[in-house]
């Protein structure tokens, strides 16, 4: 009797037979699949009670109402707020992606930071709010001690609303006039309105909802222009009533694609086209005589346009046939409620005064200024009524100095802000150096044209402070970051929806407790103000921002708090306008660059899918971007097949794009949706701040284009630049 191999074999066979009739193998097989169905590394969202909280989106100037869906205290989705009059429940993709801008930890500035490495190196150290505010107080206090209050500057996206007003008030109390707002097409329109009606500080709005003919000169009405969701709805309304949209633009943008008529116009000749249409309307006597009778200067205007802008004369330069110009002008004039609109792309470049004047005149000729479906002149909200305060000697002295950007005095006394002069002013020490810069809700390092110059200017400013919630390009170049809450974490009054006709105030409310160690910029300003000097402290009698906001809104607070917005839908503008037609118009500056050396014209391409403002495009939005715009990390520029053929370029292949401002590696996308000779380059790409989901994708078009001073307003009149494109 011995135990041998066969015994073990028998044991094994017995074990196998036995195992087969136990649950072990079967349960394990089942469990292994259940395991694969519930992999521990695949997240399981926590369940809870669904609740909604209404608020207002501040990611762009649209002012849309949002409804935030939460699971218990955790926001999980942003939806449009049905009750809001602007967006009526609709929402754009940026708003929908908003939670990514809340939760994306790697993009957020999670506490006050002080720079420790070189500028732009991204090396910061965490400091406490106490330290941060002390740092600010010391830096700014030192400037005041040296009687250089005026050398403090501030760049912000807006001058409206309580927070911006607090900053503005701080600047004034501190002794600096250098509060600079980032530009918008409304700046130029404002100048045109001032010139033709004498009305200053008028807000220009367009009554698209009631218009039956929209004639747009390069406005990306469906590309993020104005209040985007409102524009989409207006377009659908136009579709429903079988109205007409005509789009003059060198590229077949979404707006042009939806237009009933696309007029591919040579870049830079849009104003000529508009004046030519004026000429047609005048020639055919299609203008609104009621309006023109009440207006002055029609004769001078008549002779000016007929002499210079007869369709036959400008057909060649604009690239639009004379009969097309005549036909469009005629149908425009014959429409019941036509409206002409300007502001290229998403409207963040002012453009030339000539262009704004041209469309104001077009609107005037058809008599639709302040009329149903036309161009409206509304007034800025005026609920912010804070007590006067007394400046001390330091601030009085500072306020004597001219602005660094040359606005509001001399040649450009009627222009309020000229950010386009800022970089030159810093680099050339116009009148005085900029010793400190505060940046609030802006990312000038990214959004200003001629990035190289802007970077140099920033490097020259001894102290840069950013209130950014995100590690954007400007924050990266700052010495101190005092991060604001993001829009879902704070109160904020939004008194404005770009291009909207009715008075409107929205209230953004905290829908979630601040996720990180951030502070409302309003509070930061109040705290700094209270500590720099008594006189400045005197201008800020409020305990904190929330108190200030409630006091400021006064009786409106209750309604804003409960509803999220206030509006007067019955508002109509004053029906009489004292309009004066201009009799001569200065030419806009020519597109920058040598036509001999640079054979093409580069135009920036705005898209609703890529936010090009101070907030970078969140991952969801970028995910929707076509591979004809961005492929891997390469940006694609659009060119016409004819252009491609002449330059020997192949579709999707690499090329080098060069302009007087710089050079970039790109790929080309060959499409019939763009004029020959024009290169379309997407805006909003090429960030180098933020995390890897946002940064290093493509090239920032602003690095390749510069700004051009409008001779009358000083505003940036540029839209595009001469360029050349060669195979890589």
């Amino acid at each position, binding site marked *: 009797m011995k135990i041998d191999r066969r015994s073990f074999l028998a044991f094994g066979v*017995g074990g196998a037979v036995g195992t087969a009739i136990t649950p*072990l193998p079967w349960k394990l097989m089942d469990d292994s699949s259940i395991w694969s169905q*519930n992999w521990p590394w695949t997240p399981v969202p926590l369940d809870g009670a669904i609740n909604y909280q209404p608020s207002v989106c501040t990611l762009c100037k649209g002012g849309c109402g949002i409804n935030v869906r939460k699971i218990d205290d955790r926001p999980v989705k942003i939806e449009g707020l049905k009750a809001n009059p602007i967006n009526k429940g609709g929402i754009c993709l940026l708003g929908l992606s908003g939670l990514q801008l809340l939760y994306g930890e790697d993009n957020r500035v999670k506490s006050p930071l002080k720079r420790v490495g070189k500028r732009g190196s991204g090396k910061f150290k965490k400091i406490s709010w106490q330290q941060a505010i002390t740092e600010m107080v010391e830096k700014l206090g030192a400037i005041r001690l040296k009687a250089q209050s005026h050398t403090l500057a501030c760049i912000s996206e807006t001058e409206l609303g309580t927070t911006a007003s607090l900053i503005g008030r701080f600047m004034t109390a501190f002794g600096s006039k250098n509060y600079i707002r980032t530009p918008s097409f409304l700046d130029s329109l404002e100048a045109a309105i001032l010139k033709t009606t004498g009305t200053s500080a008028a807000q220009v709005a367009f009554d698209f909802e009631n218009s039956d003919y929209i004639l747009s000169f390069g406005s990306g009405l469906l590309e993020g222009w104005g209040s985007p969701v409102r524009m989409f709805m207006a377009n659908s309304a136009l579709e429903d009533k079988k109205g007409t949209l005509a789009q003059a633009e060198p590229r077949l943008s979404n707006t042009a694609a939806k237009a009933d008529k696309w007029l591919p116009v040579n870049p830079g000749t849009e104003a000529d086209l508009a004046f030519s249409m004026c000429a047609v309307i005048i020639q055919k006597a299609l203008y609104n005589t009621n309006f023109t009778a009440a207006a002055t200067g029609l004769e001078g205007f008549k002779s000016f346009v007929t002499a210079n802008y007869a369709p036959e004369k400008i057909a060649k330069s604009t690239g639009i046939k004379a009969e097309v110009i005549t036909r469009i002008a005629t149908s425009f004039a014959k429409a019941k409620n036509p409206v002409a609109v300007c502001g290229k792309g998403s409207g963040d470049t002012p453009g030339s005064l000539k262009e704004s004047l041209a469309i104001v005149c077009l609107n005037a000729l058809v008599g639709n200024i302040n009329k149903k479906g036309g161009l409206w002149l509304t007034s800025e909200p005026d609920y912010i009524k804070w007590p006067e305060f007394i400046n001390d000697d330091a601030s009085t002295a500072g306020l004597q100095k001219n602005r660094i950007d040359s606005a509001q005095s001399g040649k450009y006394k009627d222009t309020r802000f000229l950010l386009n002069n800022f970089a030159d002013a810093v680099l050339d020490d116009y009148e005085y150096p900029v010793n400190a810069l505060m940046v609030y809700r802006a990312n000038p390092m990214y959004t200003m044209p001629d990035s190289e110059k802007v970077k140099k200017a920033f490097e020259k400013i001894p102290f840069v402070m950013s209130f950014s919630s995100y590690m954007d390009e400007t924050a990266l170049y700052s010495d101190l970051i005092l991060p604001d809450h993001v829009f879902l974490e704070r109160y904020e009054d939004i008194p404005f929806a770009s291009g909207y006709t009715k008075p409107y105030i929205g209230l953004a409310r905290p829908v979630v407790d601040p996720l990180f160690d951030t502070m409302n910029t309003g509070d930061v300003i109040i705290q700094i103000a209270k500590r720099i000097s008594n006189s400045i402290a005197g201008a800020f009698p409020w305990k904190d921002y929330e108190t200030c906001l409630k006091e400021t809104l006064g009786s409106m607070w209750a309604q804003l708090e409960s509803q999220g917005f206030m509006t007067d839908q019955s508002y109509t503008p004053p029906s009489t306008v004292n309009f004066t037609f201009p009799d001569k118009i200065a030419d806009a500056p020519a597109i920058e660059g040598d036509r001999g050396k640079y054979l093409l014209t580069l135009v920036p391409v705005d898209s609703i899918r890529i936010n090009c403002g101070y907030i970078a495009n969140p991952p969801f939005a970028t995910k929707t971007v076509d591979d004809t715009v961005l492929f891997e990390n390469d940006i694609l520029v659009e060119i016409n097949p004819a252009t491609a053929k002449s330059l020997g370029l192949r579709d999707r292949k690499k090329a080098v794009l060069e302009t007087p401002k710089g050079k970039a590696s790109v790929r080309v996308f060959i499409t019939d949706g763009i004029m020959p000779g024009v290169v379309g380059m997407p805006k909003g790409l090429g960030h180098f701040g933020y995390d890897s989901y946002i940064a290093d994708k493509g090239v920032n078009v602003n690095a390749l284009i510069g700004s051009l001073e409008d001779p009358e307003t000083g505003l940036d009149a540029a839209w595009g630049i001469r360029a050349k494109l060669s195979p890589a």
Partner: protein
Amino acid sequence: MSDSDEKNGQSGIITLFFILGFIGSLLLGWIIFPELLYSKKEQPVAFNHALHNEEVANGCESCHFFREDGTFSGVPKLAQCVECHEEPIGVSEAELTFVTDYVAKGREVPWLIYSKQPDMVFFSHAAHVKMGKQDCVTCHGHIGESTSLKPYEENRFTGVSRDIWGGNIAGISMDSWDSMKMSDCDKCHKELTGRQTSVQTQRDACFVCHK
């Protein structure tokens, strides 16, 4: 020993080993394996359903209620408990633990949920209780009459509560509340609703209970 004896002895040994292997594997599979497969955890706070049931007016729904939107709240949140237990009621140890560790600190109790289904399951209490008029016991058993909470057992491999598969390792259930597998749902759906909305299975459609 003769040759044949040896042969017999040898085959006897082989048979013995076979039986040893057979019995051993049976023991392993039926007794040891289930022990190893599940981890055991006590609930963070000793809870007496029976006692609470006597105190409340509305039975189970007093604490496990429907929200206004028709969704079911499930295991109560601390805020609900605090409505009565702001201060300790009575002097039991569990009560003290509960008040000092959770109520005072404002910390949610990490209850271990026996009937927690994996994430892919959508279960509508409203459909079953409000529309279907099912009682709680059908699926949850007599937990409402229990004076203490049994230890929570979790499948180490899948992370799913043992109550889903059921206590019986072979997956056999005697009472309707013994297990909560898909086949259990399906059985009842077939018997009670008889719906055949799934083209593929001729049973209830998949998107009734899955999300």
